[in-house]
């Protein structure tokens, strides 16, 4: 049970809802592509880390 984990800014959601109301009951959403996104984000970051070892010279 991840009691205190949040997705985004729950405080902002409360402030917005209290001031402007809600359109519907809260929606539970299964994040369908979380794994693929994590893999992609890591791929970008790992490529960036590897560039530190670059031996390329320009000019």
């Amino acid at each position, binding site marked *: 049970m*991840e009691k205190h984990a949040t997705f*985004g*800014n729950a405080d902002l959601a409360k402030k*917005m809802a209290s001031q402007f109301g809600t359109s519907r009951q809260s929606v539970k959403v299964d*994040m369908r592509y979380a794994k693929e*996104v994590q893999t992609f984000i890591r791929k970008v970051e790992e*490529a*960036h880390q590897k560039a530190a070892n670059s031996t390329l010279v320009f000019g």
Partner: protein
Amino acid sequence: MSYLNDHRMAAAESQEVYLLKPPFSFFDFIEDRFGDCDSIRRTFSLARSTSAETLILEHIQPCGIIAEENQDIAGRFPTYSNTGLLRLSFWNKSIPEEGVSALNSKNLVGYAIFKRDQIIDDGFDEWHIFEAAFSKNAHPSNCVPHPQTYRLMVGGTPFEIKGLLYCQQNTLNKACAHVALRSLLSRVLPEGDISYRRINEIAATVNPGYVLGQGFTVPQMREVLSILNLRYNDIDYCQCDDQMRKDIPFQKCAYAGLESGGGALVGFRLAGPGLAEDAKHIIPIYGHTFDKDTWAPNADISYFHIGEGVGYVPSESWTSSFLGHDDNFGPNFCIPRLYIESDKVDYVVEIFRPGICYSGMQAEAMALNILYSLLPNVGGTGNKWITRLFEWTSKQQVVFRAQAMSTEEYVAHLCGLRDWENNGENPELCKLLGQEMPEYIWAVEVSTPQLFPANERKLGEIVLDATKDLDLNDDASVNDVFIFARLPGEYLLGGEISNGTPQFTSVPSRLLSHTELIKS
């Protein structure tokens, strides 16, 4: 005012004025005064293509960063001297009788500072373009996000021009990487420019014994960006397996830099007779074309896949050319996006606007997960645009366009939006978002292959906190950057995660259909 601007603002020692109407010939003028230099020819061609009517040529004395450059070259070559320094400005009208002071900045189409370097011992005697800036081509398909404004003095009167600085190497104290960096840094640094001395000083801390004017290594370029507190994403394809060129093509990375306003550097191997096998060149990319009627987005090849079977249509599908400089040939070229073969490109850098912590490619991937996950759960509102968006999402025919912005810029955009029925957003809601959001965000615009090019409109945004680093050791880190999704008729804001499933709160929006894209 910063000494970085001294050379642009220097008082002229003397002035020459040329009316450019026929029979005045730039070819004759260039050959008489500068010999044969491709970049100088290109500069005059740009002036001619903007229908410039007058050239004002001013002789100026070295000062500021040009005086610094001269000292640094003289330190390496004792018989060096800077024997010519000219500031040329091109105007779209004839000089009135009252003189230059009667002109205004709208009449200025471009300027250039030409510099002549001579080294007596080596027989070196060459003109090069220390810098130039021209207004972007007036064609509506040419987009230059966040152009810089450069101030210069002409005839004792200050003027301004918007564009992106072009700079040329001289092989004495600066190579292609130096000038490419200066071009882009002049736009993103708060001080508006950087000297070559500063770039070389930083480079020397990485490679002691480094010789001015010789090639620049990737670690040196990275150090320059880091010391200047600029974040960036880069890829050296030689350090990755071959699949990386397909998974994250250089065009994708470069385009992300363009749309975030920081620009991109593209480093490639040169090919041609007489060139060394390992000859490498790097150029700055700062804009792109927007080709409304291009066929490309209809092709499968246009889809960008972040994983097996998960993709979207990136907004760069409507870009046929990048706008960039090539210091060997001159400023403001259209460089066909697919012309430089992927296997020739070894290095690409996406520079982030100050305040941005992660890549636009990563922002788009997160937006995809959020949108594709949310939509199956938010039907039933009766909003036909939500229904349509769900249908397009199921076919992965959704366009994403990541824009790096300050919250101030975003809220101003949101406040000004009108949907197709001319509804505007609640100003109080915009105000609250302005108070509660972080200083910088990624607004990943959501559109469709019909709306995006034809109307330049969208169905909403996925808004992410751009000021937080993505902690790759913590899967939940990605969740932390989500702020909200704005869709037709509602905002969806994050909440608690229960048993691994996040809850979203829906707050009504007065914008019920499609709205204008962000214009930077």
